[in-house]
């Protein structure tokens, strides 16, 4: 199905193969992730973009082994020569926080309100290393300094509610890198924060990456963050990867209508554009999916084949730039405005109705 050979690289630290995650629900089987595969190279930053429900978070939770018990998972997740999906819970606790670490979305609720932040960082250290509490606490202060928190000695004794949102998120980052993990998964780390604070957190994330040499999976729906941080990008839609490539590939030569749509809805300073072009409609429900490409109801290029056959990921501009679209080659040199309706704020109805092209 998927051509792996073109994607195999020299030094993958994490390798996800054909990952599928399903949840039984009252309405049917929810196909949250439908055969996702990718590789993460040592030290690289992989940006994962997608709307809510695209399966990007579920994928990371599967890697961490933090899915609810009702989840049905299949596939392989290779990390340091072992398939994480086959590990026992006890073995997984040794991987979590030391081999693979995670930064979560909402800093206001990620920290335990009853313990000082320094202790919570120290706890991450003592969970994996046999050191005395005082030693761990000292390391915690150093970590706070690393993530650019001023006055770290004092802050370490404070409780989460005494810190601002940006600072709390940096504490979460400090916890994630406490044991020098090889992979850091950051799930929408800046979404819940103000734009000005975002920069601080991204800086801290950058510092963390440099200090540990870890590879990072940066999940976000914000293309601006991707542009600034990622080496490679993966676009997800309805539980599958629909395009993957380097940051330049995706931003300058996108080969999937959804990617084009995403780019068109983003204000750009580097390319002259007249108006924004949002994508009409909403992501499909991932329960009882019809055959064919999941994007076809919203795709301006959709043809009959799109409803019959779901496209597979095939190389486009080069071996490592893949896209899942029957018309991938037709998209060469296209602008978002070629496909999607530019719109103004007054034209909400037109957007909702999904009118024809001009």
């Amino acid at each position: 199905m998927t051509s792996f050979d073109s994607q195999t690289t020299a030094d993958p630290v994490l390798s996800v193969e054909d990952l599928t995650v399903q949840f039984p629900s009252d309405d049917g089987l929810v196909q949250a992730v439908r055969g996702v595969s990718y590789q993460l190279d040592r030290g690289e930053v992989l940006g994962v973009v997608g709307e809510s429900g695209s399966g990007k978070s579920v994928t990371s939770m599967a890697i961490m082994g933090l899915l609810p018990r009702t989840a049905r998972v299949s596939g392989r997740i290779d990390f340091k020569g072992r398939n994480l999906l086959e590990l026992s819970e006890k073995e997984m606790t040794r991987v979590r926080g030391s081999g693979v670490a995670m930064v979560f979305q909402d800093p206001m609720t990620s920290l335990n309100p009853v313990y000082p932040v320094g202790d919570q960082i120290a706890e991450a250290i003592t969970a994996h290393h046999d050191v005395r509490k005082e030693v761990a606490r000292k390391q915690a202060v150093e970590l706070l300094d690393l993530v650019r928190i001023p006055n770290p000695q004092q802050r370490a004794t404070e409780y989460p509610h005494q810190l601002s949102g940006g600072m709390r998120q940096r504490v979460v980052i400090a916890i994630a890198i406490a044991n020098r993990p090889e992979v850091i998964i950051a799930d929408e780390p800046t979404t819940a924060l103000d734009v000005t604070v975002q920069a601080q957190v991204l800086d801290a994330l950058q510092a963390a990456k440099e200090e540990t040499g870890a590879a990072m999976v940066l999940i976000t729906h914000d293309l601006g963050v991707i542009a600034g941080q990622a080496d490679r990008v993966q676009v997800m839609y309805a539980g599958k990867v629909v395009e993957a490539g380097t940051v330049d590939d995706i931003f300058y030569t996108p080969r999937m209508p959804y990617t084009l749509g995403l780019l068109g809805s983003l204000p750009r300073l580097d390319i002259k554009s007249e108006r924004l072009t949002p994508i009409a409609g909403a992501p499909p429900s991932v329960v009882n999916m019809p055959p064919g490409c999941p994007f076809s109801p919203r795709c301006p290029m959709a043809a009959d084949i799109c409803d019959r056959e779901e496209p597979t990921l095939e190389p486009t501009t080069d071996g490592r730039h893949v896209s899942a679209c029957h018309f991938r080659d037709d998209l060469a040199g296209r602008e978002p405005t070629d496909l999607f309706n530019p719109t103004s704020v007054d034209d909400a109805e037109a957007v909702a109705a999904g009118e024809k092209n001009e």
Partner: protein
Amino acid sequence: MLAFALRRLLVSVPILIVSTFVVFVMVSLSANPLSTLITRNPPPPQQTIDAERHRLHLDQPLLERYWNWITGIFRGDFGPSVNSTTDIGSEVITRFGVTFRLIFLAMIIALILAIVVGAVSAVKQYSKLDYTATFFGFLFLSMPSFWLAVLLKQAGISINTAVGDQVFYTIGAESIYVQGGAWAHFTDVLGHMILPTISLALISYASWSRFQRGAMLEVLNSDYVRLARAKGLSRGVVMRRHALRNALIPLTTVTALDLASIISGAVVTEKVFQWQGAGTFLLDAIAQSDVYVVEAWLLISATFVILFNLVADLLYGVLDPRIRHA
């Protein structure tokens, strides 16, 4: 922390003072202590009635009565009882001593059971254990305390008859005559406490365990528990250090709020098991319209509840740093 404690204390004092006034007025207006005397057959001479009226301060206006009562309390004088030989102050303290040991033991047992069952039910949500615990929780919540008490008492009697020996004590707080020293006395008291304590504990347990289950579920689904697991901590450590620790916080408030209704429950339990505690003391006093006894009773009980709530507030502040800095 100290500032927080002082603030809570300052708030409690006015409540207590106002409540003494409300209690006094309400009780004095609702009952006439002379009623038993007046309805006696043959009716007593007017002189006796007037003398009684004077002794019970009924010839004074209400506010003056209140003032005398309140100031008298500081001197240890709780006022005159309908039974002229009773010293209300010492009697009410003794009686409450008996009742409080019942209440405390019942609360501790109910708390421990509720925390354990609530936590386990939440962790193993939707399991057979969860459904069974929920069912029994609902059952005991719907069961009238007096019915349960009578049932337990009867069960105790039946077991005693079947075994042929006094396994369960069903009457009174202690035996009238106990051979032996302090230990024998202690076990005798304990033996008398078993059935009433179970009876009183079961209903509190039912409501607290459901509450605890809810609190635990909420905590288990929280972001910080998820982060704790992502750190690589074992399930047990996450459960104890992160989940349970936070889930216990709201329980302190609930326990304190329920104290007043547990006292009500103790009144019923004492009646059934015929304890000479505060409960039966109150019931007798109401029947006799012995207003000063009732007022003293309500005052002591209100003071106790307010004090307990204060302690619970402080404990909450200790457990939850966010309150301390508010």
